[in-house]
């Protein structure tokens, strides 16, 4: 081995055989070195730009064909399910919003809906419409990141810059509406933390107008582009029976032909009253999933436009003083916080409000004993919360059915038998978010 080789591909002998550390641009040299070995085990990640966060892939190769693929997960395990057990029901929102960081509002909404089901309360109409509005804005942001990072992983860097440019618009809008770009903690058991700002309708209309103008660019940039299509068409195929046996949902299941969307099959928050379509395909490949995500952005815009029309003035929190957070919050320069005026008022004028405020904030409200499972359709598929209460002010158990976790099991069937490069396309089309997968 020459010194030139050592600069790039360091080789060392182990009991399993020679190990090469490949850093860049020298794959052919490794192949030359390793020639004669029929079987190569290749490790990608967990720190690797093409593995979608801290996902590690272990591939067994024969030549460039993948004979076996495995994902190694858990690098972003945060113990959120455990942490939530030590907080009151309202504080749980600030934890679950940090799981799938690209779909925080879906986590908040699903968690709150499960708590509300145990409490047996119905949130006011304005809060329901606002939740739909926020979730659909969030869905657009999440799908844009899926297109952007997917593009980056396949070498379509302009697709990445375009996707993140539009996603920035989504984050600006969410920041204006909820006070924060992510980790909003805006949806609370019983409704919303506070009302939407006065210029919501105008800001959302400006956003939909801009998105209608920008979205055709994606068709020009990516959809018709032959390289983009060749990298993805017929790649990462997963037929519908495999999807069902593995529990795969979301765009992957819909790309296999089953129009399974919980907004239609188990409507919540009044989704049955919105007009939208569930796009499907029968190609079951990466390209179909790309097209579906793009079409779902258009459908989300339709829902947003309808939701904004239905946004009637009214309360955004249940009337029940035993549940509704008594504080009034405002959005200040540093995000959402207590309204100083309100604090001054209850401190100076109303002893009872102060005691009530203190009890509800430190202890929280009690939730009837029992357990429920509430799923919603997140950008990645079915996101469900199985919440168990022992009748106290803290959850006994919060189990999350996380679509990234479930969907990642489809990596081996999608990529075994294909090329190494196709594995990257397949993982990009699964669109896993490791924060959600590992929790």
């Amino acid at each position, binding site marked *: 081995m020459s010194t030139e080789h050592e600069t790039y591909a360091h080789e060392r002998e182990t009991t399993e055989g020679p190990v090469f550390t490949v850093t860049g641009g020298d794959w052919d040299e490794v192949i030359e070195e390793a020639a004669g070995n029929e079987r190569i085990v290749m490790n990608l990640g967990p720190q690797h730009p093409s593995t979608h966060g801290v996902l590690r892939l272990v591939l067994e190769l024969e030549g460039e064909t993948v004979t076996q693929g495995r994902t190694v*997960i*858990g690098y972003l*395990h945060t*113990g959120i*399910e*455990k*942490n939530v057990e*030590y*907080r009151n029901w309202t504080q749980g929102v600030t934890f679950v919003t940090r799981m799938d960081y690209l779909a925080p509002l879906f986590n908040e909404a699903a968690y709150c809906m499960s708590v509300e*089901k*145990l409490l*047996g309360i119905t949130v006011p109409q304005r809060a329901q419409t606002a939740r739909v509005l926020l979730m659909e804005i969030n869905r657009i942001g999440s799908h844009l990141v899926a297109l952007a990072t997917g593009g980056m992983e396949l070498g379509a860097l302009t697709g990445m810059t375009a996707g993140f440019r539009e996603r920035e618009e989504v984050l600006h809008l969410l920041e204006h509406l909820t006070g924060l770009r992510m980790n909003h903690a805006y949806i609370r058991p019983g409704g919303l933390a506070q009302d939407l700002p006065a210029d919501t309708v105008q800001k959302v209309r400006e956003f939909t107008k801009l998105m209608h103008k920008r979205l055709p660019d994606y068709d020009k940039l990516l959809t018709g582009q032959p390289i983009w299509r060749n990298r993805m068409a017929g790649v990462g195929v997963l037929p519908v*029976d495999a999807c*069902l*046996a*593995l*529990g*795969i949902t979301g765009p992957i299941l819909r790309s296999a032909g*089953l129009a*399974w969307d*919980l907004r239609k*099959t*188990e409507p919540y928050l009044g989704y049955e009253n919105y007009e939208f379509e569930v796009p499907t395909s029968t190609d079951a490949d990466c390209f179909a999933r790309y097209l579906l995500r793009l079409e779902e952005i258009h459908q989300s815009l339709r829902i947003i436009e309808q939701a904004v029309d239905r946004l009637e003035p009214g309360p955004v929190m249940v009337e029940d003083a035993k549940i509704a957070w008594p504080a009034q919050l405002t959005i200040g320069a540093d995000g959402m916080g207590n309204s100083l005026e309100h604090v001054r008022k209850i401190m100076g004028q109303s002893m009872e409000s102060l005691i009530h405020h203190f009890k509800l904030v430190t202890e929280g409200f009690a939730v009837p004993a*029992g*357990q*429920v*499972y*509430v*799923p919603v359709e997140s950008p990645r598929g*079915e996101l*469900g919360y*199985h919440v*168990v209460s*022992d009748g106290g002010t803290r959850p*006994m*158990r919060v*189990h999350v*059915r996380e679509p990234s*976790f*479930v969907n990642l*099991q489809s990596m081996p069937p999608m990529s075994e038998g294909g090329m190494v490069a196709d594995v990257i396309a397949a993982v990009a089309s699964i669109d896993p978010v490791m924060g959600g997968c*590992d929790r």
Partner: protein
Amino acid sequence: MTAASPELAARLQELLPSGVTKAAFGQSWVQVEPAEWHTAAALARDELGCLMFDWLGAEDAGRPGDLGRRHTVLLHVVNPLQQRGLSVRTELGPEDELPSIAGVWAGAAWHEREAAEMFGLALAGQPEPARLLLPDSFVGHPLRKDFVLAARVVRPWPGGLEPGESSSAPSRRRLAPPGVPDPSWGPRREEDPR
């Protein structure tokens, strides 16, 4: 889809008379013995058309005074044509093994491995029983109710818990962060004179 629908629970009850159907909050489930766990799963898929695996989870069975010993395992599967979900539960004692149903729905594999490592359940017949999320060196089963958050004991909680609190005022009793056990558990770092 109707999550944990009463219709499918009633049909499984007919096919498996030893099960017990229960309902709360508009959702139904069939409680079966661990020995019938695999039978119930196979019946759900082959007779009730529940081709779609949804999720499998575990929780403390929640008997007062008996925390961390008995665990409930929950399974939710879906009949995609009828758009109905079926919920099945079983309860495992400390010596019981959970029969793997990864052969019925391949998707159950990761869920079982997660439940096993988080709750310390024993799996029977799982094709790949290795750890999934936790490193091999991890000791304990973090989601069990009797698991002590040791890291929070040995590492002081960052930031102030109360306004005006500071470490330079030893006279004041420090508030323990959530999940930290009482002093009988052992010494902590801030009490260590080093």
